[in-house]
């Protein structure tokens, strides 16, 4: 007891170097602290995901129990989803394809419009280009869900309800500002003299855009592309409002339909939720570095 107190006193006076035992003790305590915090963080982060896996592994009808780990894990529900074996899952592959199509189109048009706009503003320096940047910035800070009701009514008036292109239009409109933002930031690292010399050699703006601008922007295109793809894949509200038939809806809308029914087959639902989560998680971990690069480049976006 007393030597420890003496040590503590010695450590308190800053001039004297703390004795080795105290250093070791402090290091030990900090190790314990880091360990405890780590365990808490892992449990906290993983719990809902573990719950998903746990229920998906239950055999059918056995969801209502009080187990903390699967006693008899079965892949039955995954098989059920992949073979569309439950009446709720009749159109699973169709819906999966719808989600993929939506993601691909949103990515393509976001990259196309975003790169064209930023090329014109930042490289060709079009007059009043700042007005366009401001319009984009304004879109970026308006919550998309606030525009859902008027957007829905407009699409209904145009007869575009239940048409995937209405969702694609909405998502492109909300994803492109971020693209313009990031492209302008990234484009600063490419000297304007590159464009200049191409111009002097007689290249048209279209040629400069295709042969010089796009290849040099490749890293930013990848970052924004993954952003747009994940945005479209994860988005719910617009898809929920605008896609209502079973063959036109996407996976998240189908999942929500599950939730609203009285007898939800929870194991199938969780298996669907896991299969739906695999592509974005894989993409996220594959492009992790690029994505965080994009985040720091273009400010921040949730």
């Amino acid at each position, binding site marked *: 007891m007393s030597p420890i107190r003496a040590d503590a006193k010695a450590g308190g006076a800053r001039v004297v170097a703390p004795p080795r035992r105290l250093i070791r003790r402090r290091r030990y305590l900090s190790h314990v602290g880091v360990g405890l915090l780590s365990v808490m963080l892992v449990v906290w982060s993983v719990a809902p995901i573990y719950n998903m896996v746990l229920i998906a592994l239950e055999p059918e009808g056995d969801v209502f129990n009080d187990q903390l780990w699967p006693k008899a894990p079965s892949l039955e529900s995954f098989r059920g989803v992949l073979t569309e074996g439950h009446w709720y899952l009749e159109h699973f592959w169709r819906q999966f394809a719808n989600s993929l199509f939506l993601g691909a189109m949103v990515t393509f048009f976001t990259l196309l419009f975003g790169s064209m706009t930023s090329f014109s*503003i930042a490289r060709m320096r079009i007059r009043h280009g700042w007005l366009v940047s401001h319009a984009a910035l304004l879109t970026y800070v308006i919550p998309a*869900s606030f525009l859902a009701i008027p957007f829905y009514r407009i699409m209904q008036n145009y007869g575009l309800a239940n048409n995937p292109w209405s969702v694609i239009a909405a998502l*492109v409109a909300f994803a492109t500002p971020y693209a313009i933002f990031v492209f*302008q930031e990234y484009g600063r690292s490419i000297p304007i003299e590159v464009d200049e010399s191409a111009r002097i050699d007689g290249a048209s703006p279209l040629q400069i855009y295709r042969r010089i601008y796009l290849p040099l922007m490749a890293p930013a295109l990848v970052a924004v592309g993954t952003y747009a793809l994940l945005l479209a894949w994860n988005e719910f509200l617009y898809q929920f409002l605008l896609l209502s038939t079973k063959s036109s809806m996407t996976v998240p809308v189908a999942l929500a339909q599950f*939730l609203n029914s009285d007898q939800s087959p929870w194991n199938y639902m969780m298996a669907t939720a896991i299969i739906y989560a695999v592509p974005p998680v894989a993409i996220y971990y594959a492009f992790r570095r690029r994505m965080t690069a994009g985040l720091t480049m273009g400010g921040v976006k949730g």
Partner: protein
Amino acid sequence: MMDGASVVDVGRWAVRRRTLTRSLRGRLQGGEYTWAVAFVVPYLAVFATFVAYPVVYGLWLGSEPSLYRELLRDPIYQGTIVNTVLYLALGVNVKMFLALLLSGFFMRPGWWMKVLLLIFVLPWAVPQISTFISIHWMLNGEWGFLNNALYTLFHVEGPSWLNDRWMALGAVIVSHIWKWTPFWTLILLAGRMAIPLEIRDTARVDGATGVRGFVYITVPLLANLYLISTLLSTIFLLGDFNAVYFVSGGGPADSTHVLATLGIRNAFDIAQPRLGVAAVMSALPLVIPLVIVLMRRLRTTEVQL
């Protein structure tokens, strides 16, 4: 010291850009000008059709004062305002403060921190719908994982979480914090990494370690990023639909709605779109100042980065 340098830099840049622009504009000939316009037109068309038009149409839909009188009399709307304020105040601040602390924790060296960070960002990487549905089921009073765990580990009978207004709202807020803390931690971590090592080392030599280092070095240098992140997070959270819709579903008895979900509920569940727009529009007194501040702030960081 750093600020002074960057201001000088920005100034020099602006001057150089202005002269460049002037000279370029002089040479931007007819054909090239047409190309420049043609490159902007697709986005402008998208903006006009799918952003500007819905904004104007929405403003028109929600322009009758009688709608707001009707809303204010509605007890569900009154509760929604309380919920929205609580959701904003707790959701944003607890999350950002946790992110600030955790970003410092993840600055520690070692392979374990790298692995832990990979696990820690999982909530952000997994789609919202999947995780929020899972949380919804976890909180089921009879068969949910949380109550099973409470009973098995501590022999405590957990309540049915989503049947009480305040517990359900708490569940929504905690779900939001669970989902978004990793993202903001990454942002603040990137901000901390950007603090030059020399500053840290100099400060350490001068005795600014631990709490003092945090107060005198980290906080001032991160303040700008933290502020922008908080503002952005406020506006994202204000527009958040999924957490409430999937975790509590607005229930029990429509007592845990926030403005975003109440708008959709008014417009589609009770088929009164004007009332729905009005509910959303009543957030404008908060949205407009936020948007103005953010537009300015984001522009200045754009220059500084």
